[in-house]
């Protein structure tokens, strides 16, 4: 009937978070310590295929064998492969709030290795974003050790 009130549908909601502590483990802990203490990226070169294993892992997924212990420093400079930007706020699970400052996301081909890394760009002017642009990590002054996105703020455009 046209005049009947709309049916009311009930939604049940919960606010309580579900707390976890995830172990980074042996290999990622080393990377995170290097980020926090020395502001540098490190990973292992696989003893079988000689490629960088990223993120660092005890086993090389490609070779299906132990990666070994050949730790090397990885450049924090690279070239943007592709990028995108959001028109809505992103959720930061570390603080349980929406981010107030939005940055474009990009895949960055780090120099001198086979690592593609998804990170944020400092540059917000979309007219200035283009594939191939050169960028470098901007490190948080006081490292926190809670993962890369804690210790690298974003990648900044550089002139070379």
């Amino acid at each position: 009937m046209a005049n009947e009130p709309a049916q009311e549908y009930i939604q049940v909601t919960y606010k309580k978070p579900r707390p976890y502590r995830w172990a980074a483990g042996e290999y990622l802990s080393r990377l995170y310590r290097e980020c926090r203490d020395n502001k540098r990226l490190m990973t292992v070169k696989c003893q079988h295929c000689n490629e960088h294993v990223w993120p660092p892992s005890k086993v090389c997924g490609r070779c299906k064998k132990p990666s070994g212990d050949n730790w090397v420093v990885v450049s924090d400079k690279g070239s943007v492969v592709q990028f995108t930007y959001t028109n809505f706020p992103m959720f930061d699970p570390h603080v349980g709030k929406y981010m107030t400052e939005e940055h474009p996301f990009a895949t960055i081909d780090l120099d001198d290795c086979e690592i593609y890394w998804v990170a944020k760009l400092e540059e917000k002017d979309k007219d200035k974003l283009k594939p191939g642009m050169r960028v470098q990590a901007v490190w948080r002054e006081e490292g926190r050790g809670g993962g890369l996105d804690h210790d690298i703020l974003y990648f900044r455009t550089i002139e070379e």
Partner: protein
Amino acid sequence: MAERVGIVAVAQTKYQPNRDEVNAGELVWETIEPVMKEAGVRFTNDDGDGDIESIVTCSQDFWDGMTISSMGVMSFTGGHHATEDKIAEDSLNALFAAYAQILSGHFDMVLVSTHTKESMGDRSIIESAAFDPVMMRPLGLDFFIAAALQARRYMDKYGVTAEQFAKVAVKNRGNGMKNPVAQEPMNITVEDVLKSKMLVDPIHQLDTKPISDGSIAMILAREEKAKKLTNKPIWITGVSNCYETHYLGDRDLAECDALVTAARRAYKMAGITLPAKEIDIAEIADEYSYQELLWMEGLGLCGRGEAGRLIDAGVTQIGGKLPVNTSGGMLSGNPNVVAGMARVAESVLQLRGEAGERQVPGASVALAHGTTGACGAHQCVMTLSNK
């Protein structure tokens, strides 16, 4: 007779709490590397060269705190560019899936890997999320509280006692003393159990398992291959699972109809008609001590309400007529999800004659049981033989 599927290699971690030094992948690798070595097999590479044709992993998203909980272990299980499936139930069902994959004719050899780090999350909050969010979750119910309701109903309906539950805890934690991978083996008395803190009436602290982290890996192979890889293959002779019902209010919690059905089907496959006589050892999910007794009845190892008398008579201890949980059971410490494969790991060791101090002489037929959800909502039963 259909072709058979054998378990050719088994490895389990020592069960421990708070493995904060390893991530899930590294925990899994502790068992993957040994089974690959034991069987002398390789992962399959991109050219198709290798032995393992399919990977079945078993973990649960809420315990791991991530959707696609298999993701973090894939590099460690040879999952890169490989056939892979994940089972999110008790891991006995992962073995069931791998077994079916081989019988389907698609694969000759399957790797099965399970892990859980219970210490990462909050047990009660995770279990509470298993209840539907609209009706039952607002109660704040978790599996522990649901189990206590079941234990109380079982006591009232069949006259089983708190002392009999305590005897299960004493037996299993005592068996754990003889199992090098047990987490919390204990030399305790019935009095110790009954004097331990009452957590949720009628379940005391020592009537329940500790929070535990661990992983297990196994390799399953078609009969012909299995015989080439080991001189001690352990055959899966029967397996089935059965779902009960979600709403606890739909059930008389002293009954376990789904388990009765799963067991009947598994026994039929295995040609077992008198389970109590034909089965030499049984590994039964005992997250709470009362469950070993209730599930024994559901598994047809005795009549309804009789399991209490069997524990009184010592029938289920090592040296008794039907030893149950020679491993020490979940009460000695196994993580959820991993628990079902822990039952099979012990069965395999017993049937190979490799169970050390806790070996049951001449054990030839084993029963492994695993359950998922509150009060045995989903039940899985497997029979194994060394012949």
